[in-house]
């Protein structure tokens, strides 16, 4: 029994042939690593016949930093800042995934106050992430105005983070056993003042972009993936929910304060780019609803239940914990030997790595402009793919 290992070179030098009736030529186009649609450094080799996409070969790895290898030399608290640098638009939620896994494995209790603050912060970041995505999608499809509006809301939410956390992008906020810093006394008042504004913003997004005929034409019925196929292709988050699968970890296995609040799991109907667009807009409304229910009753108490200088050693075995980030299920798999305070092996289940490959399945047959819509609707963050 021999296993044949292929190379990218082999793939790119395979004979090309055109099969349409017109005399066309098949050719390969590199989109990326530096391309506006890449949103970072993702190289996608597209095999084209005229303008029709025949095959998509994603070539990730331009931001591969070996985070999993580095984590084998770090203790669990030192792992947290590295997760900020994976999906940088879901930094707080990534922190939470590690903290939650470590807390469950080590049997650390947290308080209601900690869980409520974590939930509010995570939902604020989901709003921030979706606002940015909305703007960037507009830009990808030729509406530059949307980009500026999306960044406006990102900035305003970023100011709230900066005041509490001191950082705007790499938060390092949620720690095993608690939070890095306590919230400021006027945090609740500021967030409450922000919520009606954000509600108006979502309405504004609708009038700016959703009703646009060109925008709708480019998204509706493009890149359809049905529920069963999306699940088989490992999709999670808004991508799989747009295909009608109500898979949302906040609802299926509630963590934090999600068990105490009312919210709907937003699902799409047919799983085209428009559904993926609209699911995220509706999720912004649900996030605002979640924060509204929590912001008035933040319990009093300390912001951490353990001292941060205690040694954390997990019991021997495999521990897996996950949270729902803005892009899907972010999981942390820790194999501990029970002796050291560093993981024996740490694996990140990244939502973007698993969501990426759906482009290879749904893009063939569409035009190159539709491919832009498809990739944009997946909301990829490249450092999270490469890790």
């Amino acid at each position, binding site marked *: *029994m021999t*296993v*044949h*290992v*292929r*190379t*990218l*070179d*082999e*793939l790119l030098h395979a004979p090309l042939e055109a099969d349409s009736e017109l005399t066309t030529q098949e050719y390969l186009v590199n989109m990326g690593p530096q391309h506006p649609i890449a949103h970072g450094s993702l190289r996608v080799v597209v095999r084209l016949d005229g303008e029709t996409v025949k095959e998509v070969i994603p070539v*990730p*790895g331009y931001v*591969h930093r*070996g985070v*999993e*290898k580095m984590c084998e*030399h770090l203790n669990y608290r030192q792992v947290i800042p590295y997760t900020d640098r994976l999906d940088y638009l879901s930094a707080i939620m990534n922190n939470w995934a590690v903290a939650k896994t470590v807390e*469950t*494995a080590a049997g650390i209790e947290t308080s209601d106050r900690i869980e409520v603050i974590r939930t509010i912060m995570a939902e604020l970041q989901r709003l921030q992430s979706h606002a940015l995505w909305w703007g960037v999608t507009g830009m990808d499809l030729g509406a530059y105005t949307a980009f500026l509006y999306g960044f406006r809301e990102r900035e305003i939410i970023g100011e709230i983070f900066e005041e509490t956390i001191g950082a705007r992008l790499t938060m390092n906020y949620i720690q095993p056993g608690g939070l890095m810093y306590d919230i400021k006394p006027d945090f609740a008042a500021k967030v409450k003042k922000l919520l009606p504004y954000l509600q108006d913003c979502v309405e504004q997004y609708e009038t700016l972009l959703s009703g646009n005929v060109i925008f709708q034409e480019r998204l509706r019925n493009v890149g359809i993936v049905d529920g*069963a196929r999306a*699940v*088989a*292709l*490992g999709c999670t988050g808004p991508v799989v929910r747009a295909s009608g*699968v109500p*898979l949302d970890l906040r609802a*299926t296995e509630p963590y934090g304060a999600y068990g105490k609040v009312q919210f709907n799991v937003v699902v799409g109907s047919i799983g085209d780019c428009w559904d993926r667009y609209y699911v995220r807009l509706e999720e912004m409304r649900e996030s605002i609803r979640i924060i509204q229910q929590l912001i008035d009753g933040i319990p009093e108490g300390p912001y951490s239940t353990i001292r941060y200088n205690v040694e954390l050693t997990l*019991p*021997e*075995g*495999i*521990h*897996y914990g996950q949270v729902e980030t803005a892009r899907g*299920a972010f*999981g942390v*798999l820790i*194999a501990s030997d029970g002796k050291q305070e560093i993981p*024996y*092996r740490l*694996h990140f*289940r990244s939502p973007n*790595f*698993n969501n*990426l*490959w759906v482009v290879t*399945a749904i893009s063939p047959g569409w035009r190159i402009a539709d491919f832009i819509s498809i990739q944009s609707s997946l909301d990829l963050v490249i450092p999270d793919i*490469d890790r």
Partner: protein
Amino acid sequence: MDPESLLALVETAHPTLRRRPLTDRPAVSVAPGELLAVMTTLRDHADLRFDLLITHTAIDYPGENRFELIYLLYSTVHGHWLIVAADVDRTRPVAPSVCGLWPIAEWQEREAYDLMGVLYDNHPDLRRVFLEDDWVGFPLRKDYQDEYMLELPK
């Protein structure tokens, strides 16, 4: 389904399985030769229906000369979890590919090949995913060395 009856059901279908201890979710250990048969049952059995391969990775145990392959399965129909573990020989790490059951495995297995050097039999497109094709060695192995690696401060 609660973990105990889930494990009992899986064991009834495949009596040669062993339970894998020391995990926080129900887990079974399977020989690589039986992996495909077990996985097919897990996906297709009406009471199991594990339709989502959440993640797949490998853990290196050089002292015991083995890689432990971890498959984390979730059922969107029933909402239950299962970890399937399979030990492969470290000197000749070949495992059957499960791409035919879950298409996402194609890329998760490519990642495991790229970083850990596990070879997958019947994989449609086995090549490196993050590193360049001419990279020497597999970085996530415990004994990986290259000239750019730094010494950990004592």
